[in-house]
């Protein structure tokens, strides 16, 4: 699935994985947050050379609007609404800066408290 952006000289297609890469890098800037851990299936795919981003789901609608669904783990002791808002803003600004796409929604799903943290 690819998202088309029409320009005068032709069309530019951006793969969903590019979104995932940008989001994964942007999330590193938000402290106390990480994407959900990879499961056996993801690791198996990675062993065969397919890069996996569990917890990032990119949906491109017919009108070229993009909805992102992020599944994250947060560190213990962090205020979840604040960190979720921060995640949404960071991801939005990273996507706006890098790809000129129409972001519809960024849904954040907090799946758990990160292990090994305080």
């Amino acid at each position, binding site marked *: 699935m690819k998202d088309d952006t029409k320009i005068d000289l032709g069309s530019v297609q951006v793969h969903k994985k590019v979104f995932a890469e940008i989001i994964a890098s942007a999330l590193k800037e938000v402290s106390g947050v990480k994407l959900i851990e990879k*499961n056996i299936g993801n690791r198996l795919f990675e062993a065969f050379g397919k890069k996996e981003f569990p917890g990032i789901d990119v949906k491109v609608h017919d009108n070229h609007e993009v909805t992102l669904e992020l599944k994250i*783990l947060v560190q213990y002791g*962090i205020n979840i*609404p604040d960190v979720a808002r921060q995640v949404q803003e960071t991801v939005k600004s990273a996507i706006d800066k890098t790809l000129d796409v129409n972001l519809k*929604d960024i849904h*954040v799903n*907090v*799946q*758990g408290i990160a292990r090994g943290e305080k």
Partner: protein
Amino acid sequence: MNFLTRIAVLFYVTIILFISSFTLLFVLNYIDPRHVMETFSLIYLDDNLRLLFGAAAGVLLILNYIFYQTFTVSAYRDHTIAFDNPTGRVSVSLMAIEDLVRRMIGQIKEVKEVKSRISASKKGLQIKVKLVLRSEGRIPELTSRVQELVKRKVQDAIGLDEPINVAIYVGKILPDQGREKLTAKKEEQLKEPEHNVPFQGYRA
């Protein structure tokens, strides 16, 4: 339906199809019991076949366990409470809140073990906490402290003003080890005479 779900469905459909077809054929006398027994004895007597079937059984067991874990955990993770931000929806898995509650209560020194279960309904959040305590002292005080802490921290963490009901069940109280050691020491001291005087208590 994602990839893993498709594999799981295929797996169980194949197994059920095999078992039911075999049973039907067996009941309808299409399969001779002697052939079945012969096949079983052949497998039993051939080391390679035994190894092969054993490995297949092991793989099936592992697959079954993975499917069970994946579907039960992911089904439970789908239970969330949600609130809307201008940029999109934020949903918090009930499992995450359970983790939070466990970590929070685990930091109280009187608590040895903690299990929590959370359900969300129209009435609000229902948090059930099962505790194993270290000492017997002041349980009502401790439990009310736990209830207050859970209520306050969960409200702070998820930022919702929904009513939160915290039910606590004390499953076990472990004896205070420090006090137990002290009592044992005292008993030992009482048993031992204060001075070892030879012929003490001897009367001629």
